[in-house]
């Protein structure tokens, strides 16, 4: 009973801590805005694939972002493109964290032979060069979001696994775990109920970092033409813009909106990560608390004071 109260308050306290942080809040709002657009947007706009206007015409009242090389509405394309890009990006983020947590967690917790075997697998995947492997696989498998997701997850899970493994190993030796074992709790329960909530900030920032990576890599692959170029995504929008020589025709409107959207999404995710870091990194936390108590303190020598913050 006591355990339950303890870890649920860990989680809620973590959340309230993060939300109160300005950077994380700003980042989250922007992301939610984009997610909203991705879900609702396509229903509100005209078709992104209809060949409507004169190709390569600049932004006007009729077409807010102008038209691309085929006379398609760039505004509709930017909005429609959000859906698949964000979906694949976040899904990849979640999957690599889950898989990494599963494998890394088991390796770190159980140790011994299990750890040796799993570590070997993790390390092998780690040294595989990601981008070339992605290029090769993406060109072999049928083009589409499924392939992109598979390729991203396959090349991305190992790094998370390694980090979680070392973190798990640190926790494994802590008192509360020994106590739980002695009191007869099952291992699985310990991992999921006791340890994971304490790794929340790590898992969250890994999810965000992986999502940033997934979005970027996905767009890169699609730009090379390795995605399904008959779909409308941010990556394929840029592929077509490049194919239609956007720069040479000085049709900046065909690639700037999409590029900016990707940058803003990645940046806001980074902001959230900054925020989480500020809230949970004990050094930064204590420094913030220190500075709150002593407003004009001159900490010009940069040394980080260590204050004991609440658990």
């Amino acid at each position, binding site marked *: 009973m006591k355990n339950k109260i303890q870890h649920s308050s860990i989680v809620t306290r973590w959340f309230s801590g993060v939300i109160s942080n300005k950077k994380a809040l700003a980042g989250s709002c922007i992301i939610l805005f984009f997610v909203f657009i991705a879900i609702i947007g396509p229903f509100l706009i005209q078709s992104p694939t209809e*060949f409507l206007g004169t190709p*390569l015409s600049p932004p006007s009242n009729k077409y807010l972002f102008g038209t691309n*090389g085929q006379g398609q509405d760039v505004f509709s394309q930017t909005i429609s493109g959000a859906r698949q890009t964000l979906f694949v990006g976040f899904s990849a983020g979640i999957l690599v964290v889950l898989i990494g947590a599963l494998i890394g967690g088991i390796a770190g917790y159980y140790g011994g032979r299990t750890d040796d075997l799993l570590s070997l697998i993790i390390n092998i995947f780690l040294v595989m060069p990601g981008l070339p492997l992605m290029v090769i696989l993406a060109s072999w498998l049928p*083009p589409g979001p499924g392939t992109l997701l598979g390729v991203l997850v396959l090349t991305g899970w190992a790094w998370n696994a390694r980090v979680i493994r070392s973190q798990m190993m640190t926790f494994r030796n802590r008192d509360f775990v020994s106590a739980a074992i002695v009191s007869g709790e099952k291992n699985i329960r310990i991992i999921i109920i006791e340890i994971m909530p304490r790794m929340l900030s790590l898992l969250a920032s890994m999810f965000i970092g992986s999502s940033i990576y997934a979005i970027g890599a996905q767009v890169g692959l699609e730009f090379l033409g390795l995605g399904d170029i*008959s779909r409308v995504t941010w990556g394929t929008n840029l592929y077509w813009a490049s*194919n*239609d*020589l956007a720069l040479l*025709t000085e049709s900046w409107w065909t690639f700037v909106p999409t590029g900016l959207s990707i940058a803003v999404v990645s940046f806001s995710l980074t902001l959230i990560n900054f925020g989480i870091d500020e809230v949970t990194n004990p050094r930064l936390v204590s420094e913030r608390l220190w500075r709150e108590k002593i407003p004009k303190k001159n900490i010009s020598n940069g040394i980080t004071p260590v204050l004991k913050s609440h658990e």
Partner: protein
Amino acid sequence: MTRKNLYQTLIFGLFIFCSCEEKTTRDREGLIIYQEQFLSWVRNFEPLNPASVPRWPTRGGIYEPLYIYNPIKAEWLPWLATKYEWRENNKKLLFTIREGVQWSDGKPFDAHDVAYTFNLTKKFPALDTRNSWEYLKSVVAVSNTILEVTFNRVYVPGFDAVAGTYIVPKHIWESLKDPLKFSNPNPVGTGPYTEVLRFDSQIWELGKNNNYWQPEKPYVDKLIFPAFSSNEQVTLALLSGELDWSGAFIPAIDRIFVAKDPKHHRYWFPNTGYSTFLHTNTKDPVLSDVRVRKAISYAIDRSQVVKVGMYNYTKPAHVTSLSGPMAKWHSPDITSKEDWTSYNLQKASKLLDDAGYILNNKGQRLKKDGSLLELDIIVVSGWSDWIRSAQVVSQNLNKAGIKAKVRTYDFGAWIGRMQRGDFEMSIGWAEKGATPYNFFKGMMFSEYVKPIGEVADVNWHRFGSEKADLLIKTLEKTSDKKIIKNIINDLQHLFIEHAPGIPLFAEPAWGECNTKYFKNFPSKENPYGPLSNNEQPSFIFTLLNVQKR
């Protein structure tokens, strides 16, 4: 602080120096060409092995054939041979080989080199690119100037392959241990350009053959080939005057290219005579009905396909798929035949009704079992102009009630599917040739039809017609121009009647040039040959006529 300043000035100076270095004028002695898209060059000039990728212009510019076909004028020109003659009821073909021709190393060229080349491909079947030995019996040099080609069966269209074979020097090839692994780094040929002046991974240069058999030609001393990795790079080079001649696909070319220098920036995209197709798998239960195929064709707004997919660079296809230089083959009563390549939604609708596809209240066509009429169009991923065209076609078909979806596959997967017949519809090319014979054979010859699942090299849409077989076999035996013309007329009528495939738009040949430093490129006003350097070996006409300003 002064040390910092010193560094800054040093770096700045270096920078200025470098940029000055680069701004030296381009080499005006050489014609700068783009035809192959490689980022780094490999030194290979071997013309025979189909597996090797020799540097352009090996096939045609370094090594020449007996006759050259000019697709713009639609005629064969004598080249290394001066005349030919059919004998013994088309069982023997005699060539008179041109006299006074030398190899670039000074040694004399004669009929023995020609015979040697053919017998080489007999000895090494892997070199027999056009599978000539399937119908040839022997090739013998009766004298220095007469070549006798004997067929094992009468096959008049075999002329194309025989006359088009690139001739290699006997005195070089006979000393090779393994011709299949030969990369021929220092070519010896009869063509206008044979001397490799410079070969780096980023740029290479080909100088002229001082022993060339056409007097005073070529006029330009050398050809320069920088490496380009993308269309964008090619366009940038064209715009900045760093490229004189290319065969690239450039979107919105008037705006991007011509507008920058209307006086010198030129392009010409003439019709090759044939068309790009929407292939329909005639073994598919839905598509086996000719009414459905014609309905699909009527439902396609080809002018929109051409406008959006091909930037209006070409025209909608003729119903026989022959146009431009091939239009002269049209049968005299062609205009009285049905034209199912015109855009006509009512006719499409009527045909679908006749074929038994019910129209529901959402405007969709249903099969007899109530399911939606759905067809996939497969395209090679990366060939963006075809993908765009396919997208327009699918939108057109959706409007007509057929649910059409575009699927892209990487090239290997796509061609595998086409060969095995694992597709419904697809954008693709059709067979070509000096006459429409190749085209119609590829479209309707029964012996080419392989069952679904088995790999077919041609006639992927698997349509066969016994009437067509008869006509084709007769054509192969005759060299009488009048009979040939009549047979081609009948083949056209069969094609129109059966619609084995759906021609979309005339196939253009891409060619751009910059006339600022060089003149006399072919053009619409001066169509002595193709401007496109992708046309092999007819690019040679340009090579032999271009001059420095």
